[in-house]
């Protein structure tokens, strides 16, 4: 199990949801958030673990970390 230095302002529990559920949950939350908000997106879907960073790369938001928590991944994103 890994650790991260980032403390989320908001955690999105999208475990057990398949693609694109976790990504859609993140997009909806990010759009409603203030700048500099740190999100932790929890997903157990391997496809989303790879796809969410692809989406972030096309936005002004920042991918902070991806942590393997064993049963799921935690993806940390800071809003622009």
């Amino acid at each position, binding site marked *: 199990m890994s650790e991260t230095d980032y403390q989320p302002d908001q955690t999105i529990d999208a475990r057990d*949801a398949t693609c694109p559920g976790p990504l859609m949950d993140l997009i909806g939350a990010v759009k409603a958030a203030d700048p500099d908000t740190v999100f932790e997106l929890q997903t157990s879907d391997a496809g989303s673990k790879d796809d969410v960073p692809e989406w972030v790369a096309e*936005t002004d938001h920042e991918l902070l970390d991806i942590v393997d928590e064993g049963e799921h991944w935690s993806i940390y994103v800071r809003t622009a």
Partner: protein
Amino acid sequence: MTGYAIVLASGDVGRVQAASIIGSVAAASDVPVELFVTMDGLTAFESERVERGAFEGGEVAEAMAADGGERMDLYYEQLADAKEIGPLSVYACEMAMDLFGTDLDDYVDVFDDTLGVAGFLNRAADKQVVFV
């Protein structure tokens, strides 16, 4: 490229779900999407069929019926959610509805309006057309 104009002409739920996923994620990412549902594509949106979970298709249909929307939002839910957060319009083909003798009340509440082919072509003029 100023967005996608997706023509959904198949009622095969695997194709319907794929069109929904691509269109929903694009719209949520602020890429304009016009989804034109025509021919057999409309049958997937019949309220009665949706209520019964009677999806047309092969293994994907069976898997989706078994999942029951537990792990994956079904296409009509995805589209409704995406419309809340991005530029997505969903249209039902007037000609196909005439053929079936249906109106919008016969379908799940996801359509913005009905549309003819000229109207669709106007909306598709500046977009990449994807035919499903």
